[in-house]
């Protein structure tokens, strides 16, 4: 404990003496962790959207014109017997028309629908909506159903979801590359900062050694220095994220509500849920990087 306090004080003294390098290191670590938070948030949100899309949008099955109720019941049984089905919901033509009216015609619903009177334009649009236990099975289930007799058409939220999924993959790779480069720059800068500090204190370290200081005592201040760089470099972007995240989400939400009335259901991840994760990863990332880099740098420098 005593040694720890001593090391802490010396480490902070190192940082102050060497402030230009320290600031540069902290800035790169910050940039690194900020980008990490940014990409992490994007990925988490896209994943959330994909998840809601997949769970709320099922496979919709339309029937041949001449399919009767017996046929429809057989289709239902066939689907259920395939397994992995959570729910099969039947939507009659009338219900479909009602839903269409409220969803797409909005305020003008009454006038427009009056034109159709009792003549339901979606007369043949009764359907099954199928929700699966596992979203991954959607594609195989869809192709299975389309092969059943009496089935006219099978729709599922394939396109949007797969676009989002591949978008997520692109972001993933992109972020890995950018963060990788930034990590390399951070490692380089932290290592340099520690090296400069070590060179600056070479004589001091030599004297300490001659009056009986252990390697640990000589090295600890430098490791503390690296650790502080990493932690401060994590805390700054985390604070930024804390204040920025909600605003961005509000903007995004406002933007989305221009397209769809139930944007709230779109599956964005709220700050309260994502922030603890970001803090944990950010701090571990920053502290870990600072610790490991300074540890190995100083070991190399103070070998004798």
């Amino acid at each position, binding site marked *: 404990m*005593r*040694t720890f306090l001593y090391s802490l004080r010396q480490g902070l003294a190192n940082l102050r003496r060497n402030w230009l390098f320290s600031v540069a290191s902290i800035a790169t670590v910050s940039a690194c962790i900020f980008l990490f938070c940014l990409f992490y948030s994007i990925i988490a949100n896209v994943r959330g959207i994909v998840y809601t899309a997949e769970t709320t949008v099922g496979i919709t099955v339309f029937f041949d014109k001449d399919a009767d109720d017996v046929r429809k019941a057989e289709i239902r049984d066939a689907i259920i017997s395939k397994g992995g089905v959570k729910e099969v919901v039947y939507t009659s033509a009338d219900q479909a028309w009602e839903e269409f009216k409220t969803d797409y015609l909005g305020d003008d619903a009454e006038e427009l629908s009056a034109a159709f009177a009792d003549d339901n334009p979606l007369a043949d649009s009764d359907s099954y909506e199928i929700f699966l236990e596992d979203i991954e099975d959607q594609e195989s289930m869809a192709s299975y159903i389309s092969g059943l007799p009496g089935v006219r058409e099978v729709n599922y939220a394939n396109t949007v979801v797969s676009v989002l999924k591949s978008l997520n993959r692109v972001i993933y790779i992109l972020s890995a590359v950018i963060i990788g480069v930034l990590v390399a720059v951070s490692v380089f800068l932290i290592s340099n900062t520690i090296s400069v500090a070590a060179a600056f204190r070479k004589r001091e370290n030599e004297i*300490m*050694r*001659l*009056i*009986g200081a*252990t390697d640990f005592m000589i090295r600890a201040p430098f490791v503390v220095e690296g650790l502080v760089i990493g932690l401060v470099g994590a805390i700054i972007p985390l604070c930024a994220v804390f204040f920025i995240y909600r605003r961005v989400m509000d903007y995004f939400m406002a933007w989305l509500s221009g397209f769809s009335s139930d944007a709230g259901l779109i599956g964005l991840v709220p700050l309260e849920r994502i922030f603890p994760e970001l803090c944990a990863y950010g701090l571990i990332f920053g502290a870990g990087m600072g610790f490991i880099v300074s540890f190995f740098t100083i070991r190399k420098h103070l070998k004798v």
Partner: protein
Amino acid sequence: MILLEDVSKTYQTGVRAVKDLDLRINDGEFVFVTGKSGSGKSTLFKLLTREITPEEGSIIVNDFDLDSIRRRQIPRFRRSIGVVFQDFRLLNDRNVYENVAFAQRVIGASGYEIRTNVPRMLKLTGLSHKYKNMPYELSGGEQQRVAIARALVNQPRVILADEPTGNLDEANTAEIMKLLEDINQMGTTVVVITHSRAMVETMHKRVITMDKGRIVSDSGALQPRGGSVVLPEDVKSRQKRRIIRRRETL
């Protein structure tokens, strides 16, 4: 106890600074090492602190065999001795108080011990009023006294001092010598390297004189106390092994 046997040190430049040195200093002795400039005194000092290692011979200080000592044991060995360097070697990035306190931190002293021992040492060396100064704000003599305070603060078994009064006036020199003598009275072995014939003559202690890397006279060797050297068994057998080894390499 300090025991050197057949010790030789050649620097990378080819200068043979110490040659076939045999020396024994018992616990509780007070010894002066004198000799002309360049005679190898500081080299001997550095060998005793294991700042450098000899290419030949064995050195034992405070039961530590400096030849076979493990790297990890070196800090422990250095804490058992107090050293005053010819060039002071103060930590230039901290003040007088912290310089002395550092020696205490190294041995893991508590905050309480540090707060009592360090001011006591500073008072003893007459530095109480300068405790906040940085080393470069001090005169040569003051820096030297800081170095002495640092060497003494841990109450080591052995004090090694390379020209501890080189920069001091007569009054200060006498005071430091009195201090070292007091410490010696309390049982600490004191080895002082010095140029000053006057000091050596007034103190009436054992005097070892070096020239060209060899001991040319040793007043203590004539005294019964330092005279007959009885080697511990393990040292003898190790020495035999070493001699055999050396023969083999020839």
